[in-house]
């Protein structure tokens, strides 16, 4: 499967899915015009890749400095897909980078951990 790269814009994050390395990266700010339209094809490619994974060690690096309410909802779907893959024989390691002072992103990370327990989740506060 071809890797997926979507360059960041001022309102949408960089998506860098290196499927051949099992490394998936989200980086930037997320408040696109239509979050569902932005994330739907990303989630589709992600699900297709995960369906072909077995006994894989997948690393997901998330460095999102801001996401609006509709992006938040879509990220929940991303993590749902990752959790399903982790429940079916893969190891999914998420590194959740955030500003050390950003409680909103910390709390959203806690919500993800509460619901998606198969994922090996690491909160990575970064001091500014």
């Amino acid at each position, binding site marked *: 499967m071809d890797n997926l790269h979507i360059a960041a814009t*001022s*309102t949408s994050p960089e998506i860098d899915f290196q499927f051949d390395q099992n490394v998936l990266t989200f980086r930037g700010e997320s*408040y*696109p*015009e*239509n*979050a569902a339209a932005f994330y739907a094809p990303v989630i589709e490619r992600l699900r297709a890749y995960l369906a072909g994974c077995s006994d894989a060690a997948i690393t997901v690096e998330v460095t999102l400095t*801001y996401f*609006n*309410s*509709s992006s*938040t*909802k879509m990220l*929940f779907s991303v993590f749902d897909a990752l959790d399903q893959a982790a429940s079916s024989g893969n190891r999914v390691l998420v590194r959740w980078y955030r*500003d050390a*002072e*950003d*409680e*909103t992103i910390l*709390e959203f990370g806690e*919500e993800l951990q509460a*619901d998606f327990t198969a994922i090996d989740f690491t909160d990575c506060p970064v001091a*500014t």
Partner: protein
Amino acid sequence: MNMFELLDQDAAFFELAQRRNLLFYHKGYFSHSIVAAMSEVVKLQLEVAGINAPTRRKLFSSFIELSQNIIHYSSDSLAEGGGSGGAIREGAVCITTDGERHLMLCVNPVATSAVGHLRERLEPLCNMSLEEIKQAYKVSLRSDTPEESKGAGLGFLTMARDASAPLEFAFYPRVDTPETTLFCLKTII
């Protein structure tokens, strides 16, 4: 020509803006690209005003939710969106500072037929504690998106969570166009 002659009666506008510690004001059209450009202005203004980073993030978050509400729901539209072009709709957003408190006010017309529904969604939020708001946010995050929502249905809860006081809202009927009503929403951060 000195400054005062140049400004003439417009001076009152600038004086008022200064007295109210106006950080940002836009009345007019909102589209996705306009909001993206205004985001840069708002971020810079908040930083230059010396507001701490956590408060800046909350203000910016509320600014985006309010602005995107105008793009999606204002009843005054220049372009409806759909197809290749995005929506362009009219409204106003104002950010002022009052000591340690920051006020954000948003005004836009809505269909009068939508007033009841908006009221039903906002009224409960105004009476909830922060703990209850966070709980409602968690529930909404996991529930299916309401059909009429173009966003996630999470926008008002996101604003309520970031506010330091209950959200306030009001509806003003418009005599000239009774089928639309002015919707005002205020958040204090």
